[in-house]
């Protein structure tokens, strides 16, 4: 791995995004608008908004970074730039690190904006520090980037890669505890939800919502999400082949 090459890659990815202002606007504004929508869906019951709103602050970065990364890396694969880069002295870690840094930076902006609007404008009441919400949101973004990178290896076209979103993200969304507490699910589903990383993202958000301090459960949740992200990034690196048929 080389720091200079990783940073050059991150800069390049951000410059590509900078030439696409519409995507940036969608990435930053859609989560905010959805939160505002949700706030008024629960107009009569603002406390219900607290629980779901906090969970969504963790889910938005995961979903958007998943989509952006999976399509960006699929493009690298189909336009031949990936083959060119891997024929050059670029480490796989440099490429993946560059993507993680660039999209991580974008996720910081997105999550800050969404958390700020939720806490200060929409009166989302959290017992803990908004910084802890932001920490989980950032780890979720990293996980989304990692999952996107990984699934792009199994898609040949952009049509296919978009279909991975319901396949990979929706089951986690249904099982993460957003719709029903995880311990009330059918036991097999509860066991499944215990191994899906999004469950820990939502649990972590709930910890911040309920407790003023950093709890042991919060630390465990953050570590699980971060470790899952690193594991999937490593799997993603294994799908980058210098020689292809």
């Amino acid at each position, binding site marked *: 791995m*080389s720091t*200079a*090459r990783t940073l*050059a*890659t991150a*800069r*390049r990815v951000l*410059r*590509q995004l900078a*030439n*696409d202002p519409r995507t940036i606007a969608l990435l930053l504004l859609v989560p905010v608008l959805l939160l505002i929508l949700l706030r008024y869906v629960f107009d009569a019951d603002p406390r219900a908004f607290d629980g779901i709103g906090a969970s969504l602050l963790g889910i938005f970065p995961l979903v958007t970074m998943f989509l952006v990364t999976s399509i960006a890396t699929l493009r690298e694969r189909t*336009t*031949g*730039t990936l*083959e*060119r*880069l*891997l*024929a*050059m*002295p*670029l480490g796989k870690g440099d490429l993946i690190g560059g993507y993680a840094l660039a999209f991580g930076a974008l996720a910081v902006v997105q999550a800050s904006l969404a958390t700020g609007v939720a806490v200060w404008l929409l009166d989302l009441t959290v017992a803990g520090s908004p910084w802890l919400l932001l920490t989980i949101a950032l780890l979720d973004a990293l996980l989304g980037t990692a999952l996107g990178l990984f699934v792009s290896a199994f898609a040949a076209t952009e049509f296919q890669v978009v279909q991975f979103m319901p396949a990979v993200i929706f089951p986690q969304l249904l099982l993460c505890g957003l719709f029903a507490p995880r311990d009330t699910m059918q036991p097999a589903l509860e066991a499944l939800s215990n191994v899906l990383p999004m469950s820990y993202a939502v649990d972590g958000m709930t910890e911040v919502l309920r407790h003023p301090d950093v709890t042991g459960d919060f630390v465990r949740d953050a570590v699980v999400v971060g470790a899952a992200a690193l594991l999937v990034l490593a799997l993603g690196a294994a799908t980058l*082949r*210098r*020689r*292809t*048929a």
Partner: protein
Amino acid sequence: MMNNEGGPPSAPPAIRARDLRVVRGGRTVLDGLTFDVAPGTVTGLLGPSGCGKSTLMRAVAGTQAHVTGTLDVLGTPAGAPALRPRVGYVTQAPSVYLDLSARRNLAYFAAVLGTPRRDRAEQVERALADVDLTAHADALAGNLSGGQLGRVSLAVALLGAPDLLVLDEPTVGLDPVLRRDLWDLFHRLSAERGATLLISSHVMDEADRCGRLLLLRAGRLLADDTPGALRALTPGGTVEDAFLHLVDRARVREETSA
């Protein structure tokens, strides 16, 4: 077999293939190729589309899987990490970022090659000038014409002054003036910098611009000779006639052996 018009007679070949075979999806794409490419030469790889040219170039660049036999590039097995900064490879389809300008594309690839920051701008400008794109350097690559885009892709391969350039159909779709300019550039790279160039084309009239020709058909090497020697094979006196003559001869040989 050896051709010494560029490098000194004792120099090891820039590319050395012995019984080179590539199988893709159960089909033999390259079938026992044996040849040398001398350093500092411009070698043309000619043949109809689908004959295995691109596969051979990918094997030399080290991006092709399932390669058997011997394939040494600059004295090292093809694809070795040490070769990555020394081999410039241009695929048939332009592989650059469409949402970046030509200059930004080159600056990024120069950073990947490990060019020190202070030398990067100068190298980028020189590569842009080499392919005559200075006037379009700041336009988004996606807004360039097909020919211009191909030249951005070529400029990337010129960065870092590689010892071997592997160019897959670099002159397709270019106007004759530009095509002549690029061939002049290729010869300059070989004469002034001692670079070796392996250039593929399916247009036989580009053959005369090469010092040496490899004729490929259906994964087999039909000829490895100078354009002059190939032209002398037939009364028509063109490389295309020679190609047809060699194909017929190979067919007769196959029929008699079958």
